[in-house]
C-alpha cells in the first residue's frame, strides 16, 4: 500500500508506537486469518477460481491423448493425437495465460521486493511487476483471441469409446469426467433425465447432457459474471461516489438524486426490465448486473471521501498545487477504497445470487452455457417428477459460493474496521 495508507493504519489500528514493521494490510490479514471459517471460505473461492481455469482438463469429452489407426499411403499406421489440447478454445487459453501471469507476478514481485526493500520503493516494485505481467498477459491473449479458431471435431466420448472397442484406437487417456458440457447422449439412447449411474455420476439433464460436467463448467460463468459485473459497478460507483464526496454541494446533490433514482426501483424489477428489452446474452447480463449494482458502492465511497477531504494530507496535496486527478486518485482513493473491498465482496455474493435467480427463471445466460441456476430450473416444476440429482448439487454450489463470499465480507469488515479492533 502507499504511504498514506500506512499513516492511516498507524493512527487507527496500531496505537503502540514500537511495532512499526506491520503495515495496515499485514494487521488486517492477520485479523482475518484468526478465524478458521474465514480461511475455509477463502479456500473455497480459490478452489472455484482454479476450477474455472482448469475445468477443460477435468471435464471434457476429448481424451488427453489417443492413438488412432490411420491409413497413410495404403499402409495402416498408429498415429498419436492430442485431441483435448487441439480443442482448447481461445477463452481456455487466455484463462491459462492469465493465471500463469498471476503466478509469475507473485514471484517477480517477491524477487523485486527483495531488491527494493525500503517501504518507499515497494510501490515501485509492485508497479514494475504489474507492468511486466500485464504486458505479458496482453501480448499472449490478444493474438490468441484474434487467430485462435478451434477446429471442428465431430468425435465425443461415445465415438472414442466405440473406436477403442472396435480396435481402431488404443492408449487413450481420458479426463476424470469424460463429458463436455454440451455433449448430449443420442436421443435414441433414451438417457434424458436419468438418475446417477456409472456413466453419469450426477445423472443427466433434459438434453441428455452430463450433470456433473455442467456443474463443473458452470464455475466459469459464475466466477466470470461475479467479477466482471462487480468491476463495472466498482468503476461507476467509485467515480460517481468520489466526485460526490470531493465536490460536495451541487455535485453531491445531483449525484445523490441519481443514486436515489437507481435505488428507488427494486433491483430485481430493474434487471427484469433491462433483460426484457435488451436481450440476455452473457455479456448483456454482466453489463446489466453491473449498471444496476453500483449505488451501494457510490454511497460508500462518498461517505469515505467526505471524511477524507478534511484530512491534513489531502489539504497538503491540494496546497502544493497537485492537479485534481492526482489528489483524487493517487492520494484519496487508496485510503477511501479499503472499506469498499467489503462492499464489493458482498456485492459479488449478490451478483452470484441474481445470476442464478435469473437463470432459474429462464431469463439468464443462454441455453448451451451451463449455469447452476438453469440446472436447478430443470429439476422439475410441481406438475412433473422431481429430479433431485439436478437440484441438490447445483443448489449446494450456489449456496456455498454465496456463503463463502458473505463470510469473506464479514471477516474483512471485522478485520478492517478499527472500532471492532478496539473492542476486542
Amino acid at each position, binding site marked *: 500500500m502507499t504511504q498514506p495508507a500506512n499513516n492511516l493504519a498507524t493512527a487507527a489500528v496500531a496505537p503502540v508506537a514500537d511495532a512499526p514493521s506491520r503495515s495496515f494490510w499485514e494487521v488486517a490479514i492477520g485479523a482475518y486469518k484468526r478465524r478458521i471459517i474465514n480461511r475455509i471460505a477463502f479456500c473455497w473461492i480459490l478452489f472455484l477460481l482454479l476450477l474455472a481455469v482448469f475445468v477443460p482438463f477435468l471435464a471434457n469429452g476429448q481424451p488427453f491423448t489417443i492413438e488412432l489407426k490411420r491409413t497413410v499411403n495404403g499402409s495402416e499406421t498408429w498415429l498419436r493425437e492430442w485431441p483435448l489440447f487441439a480443442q482448447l478454445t481461445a477463452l481456455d487459453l487466455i484463462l491459462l495465460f492469465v493465471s500463469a501471469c498471476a503466478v509469475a507476478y507473485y514471484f517477480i514481485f517477491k524477487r523485486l521486493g527483495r531488491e527494493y526493500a525500503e517501504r518507499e520503493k515497494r510501490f515501485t516494485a509492485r508497479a514494475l511487476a504489474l507492468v511486466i505481467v500485464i504486458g505479458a498477459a496482453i501480448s499472449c491473449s490478444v493474438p490468441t483471441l484474434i487467430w485462435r479458431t478451434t477446429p471442428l471435431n465431430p468425435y465425443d466420448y461415445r465415438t472414442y469409446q466405440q473406436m477403442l472397442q472396435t480396435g481402431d484406437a488404443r492408449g487413450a487417456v481420458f479426463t476424470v469426467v469424460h463429458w463436455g458440457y454440451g455433449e448430449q447422449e443420442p436421443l435414441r439412447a433414451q438417457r434424458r433425465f436419468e438418475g446417477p449411474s456409472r456413466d453419469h455420476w450426477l445423472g443427466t439433464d433434459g438434453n441428455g447432457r452430463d450433470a456433473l460436467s455442467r456443474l463443473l463448467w458452470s464455475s466459469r460463468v459464475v466466477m466470470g459474471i461475479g467479477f466482471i459485473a462487480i468491476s463495472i459497478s466498482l468503476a461507476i460507483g467509485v467515480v460517481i461516489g468520489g466526485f460526490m464526496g470531493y465536490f460536495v454541494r451541487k455535485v453531491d446533490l445531483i449525484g445523490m*438524486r441519481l443514486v436515489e433514482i437507481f435505488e*428507488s426501483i427494486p433491483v430485481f424489477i430493474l434487471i427484469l*426490465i433491462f433483460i426484457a428489452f435488451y436481450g440476455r446474452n452473457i455479456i448483456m447480463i454482466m453489463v446489466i448486473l453491473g449498471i444496476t449494482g453500483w449505488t451501494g458502492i457510490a454511497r460508500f465511497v462518498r461517505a469515505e471521501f467526505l471524511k477524507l477531504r478534511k484530512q491534513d494530507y489531502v489539504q497538503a496535496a491540494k496546497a502544493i498545487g497537485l492537479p485534481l486527478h492526482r489528489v483524487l486518485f493517487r492520494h484519496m482513493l487508496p485510503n477511501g477504497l479499503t472499506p469498499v473491498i467489503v462492499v464489493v465482496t458482498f456485492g459479488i455474493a449478490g451478483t452470484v445470487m441474481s445470476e442464478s435467480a435469473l437463470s432459474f*427463471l429462464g431469463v439468464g445466460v443462454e441455453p448451451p452455457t451451463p449455469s447452476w441456476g438453469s440446472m436447478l430450473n430443470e429439476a422439475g416444476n*410441481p406438475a412433473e417428477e*422431481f429430479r433431485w440429482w439436478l437440484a441438490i448439487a447445483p443448489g449446494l454450489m450456489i449456496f456455498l459460493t454465496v456463503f463463502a463470499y458473505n463470510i469473506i465480507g464479514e471477516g474483512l469488515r471485522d478485520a478492517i474496521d478499527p472500532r471492532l479492533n478496539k473492542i476486542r
Partner: protein
Amino acid sequence: MLTYILRRLALMVPTLIGMTLMLFVIVRFAPGVGSGPGGLGPGGDMQGNEARLEQIKKHQQRLGMVDAEGNKIPIYKQYFIWLDNTFKFWRVPMASNVRIPTPIPTGIDLGESMQYRKPVWELVKERVPTTATLNIISIFFVYLIALPGGMLAAAKRGRSFDVAWGLTTLALYSLPTMWIGSMLIGFLANPQYVKLFPAAGLHATDTRYMTFWQYSFDYMWHLVLPIITMTYAGFAYLSKQMRASMLDNLSQDYARTAKAKGLSGFVVATRHVFRNSLLPLITIATGIIPGLIGGSVIIETMFSIKGMGELAFRSTLARDLPVMQALGLISGVLVLVSYLITDLCYAVADPRVSYD
C-alpha cells in the same frame, strides 16, 4: 419541521422526474419496441403485409411514437406525451370533452396491459392483496425470531451463542430461495416422495362447498411452504442491526446506572435497553412498505401465486411495456415515500434528531 418536510418533498420531484426519464429511456431505446405487441412473437413478412403494418402503426400510435397521420414524433416529445398521459396534466370540465392543461397532475393513468387487455391499475389491484398478505405474515415471523435472536446475541457477545447465531443467520441468508423452494416442493409436495403440502396456488381448486373453517385451514395449509421460503433469509440483516443497536445502548451510561441500582441484567436489557435500541430499526420497518407491494418474483413464480412478482415476471417474458413501466413507477414512488416516512419517524421518535 415543516420546512424540512417541504424541502424533502421538493427534492423528491427531481428524483421522480429522473425515474420517469430512466424508465422511458430504457424502454424506448430498446431494439424492436415499436414492432408490435409481444415483440418476440412472429412478425410475419413485413413487406406487403398490410394488416401487420396497420397493426404496427396502431401500436406505435398507442405508445405515442407516431401521430395520427403516421408521422414520427421526436423522442423528447414522446417523453412529454407519455408523461402527460400517465400523470394526466389536464382536466376535462363538466359537459365538454376538451382537455384543459393544468400545471399539476390530476390523476394517474397507467395505461393498458398488452397481454391481459386490461387497465394496469386493475391488474395491480387484483394482485396487491395476495402479495401483501404473504409479506405481512412473513415479516411477522422474521421479527418474531430475529429480534429476540439479536438481543440474545448482544447479551452473549463474543460467546459461542453469538458466533453460532451470526453464522446461522448468515448461512440462511446465503441459501438460494430457488433451491429451498424447489427442494420443498420436490420433497414435501410431490406424490413421488411425501405429499404433505399443496405445491401451487393459494387455494384448493374447488372451494365452493367448503365451510369457513375448512377454507381458512386450506388457505393456511397452502401458505406454509411459500412463507417458509420467504422468511428464512430475512433473519440475518434484522438480527444484526438489533445486535449492534443493543450493544451500542448497553455500553451507555444509563444502562450502567440501571445495573448499579441493582436491577438484574434481564430487566436492564428488556425494560431499558430494548426500547432504546428499537430506534435504528425504524429504517427497516419503513423499508417494508415498498416490499409489501413489490413481491418476490422467484417465490411467486415458483409457487404459481398470482401476485405482483409474478405479474412482473410474466410481463417481462411478454415484453408487456405498460405493465413494466407501471410497476417500476409504483415501486419507485413507494420507495421515495417510505424514505420520507423513515426520516419523519426518526424526528418523532427521537427529539435529539434535528433537521435544520
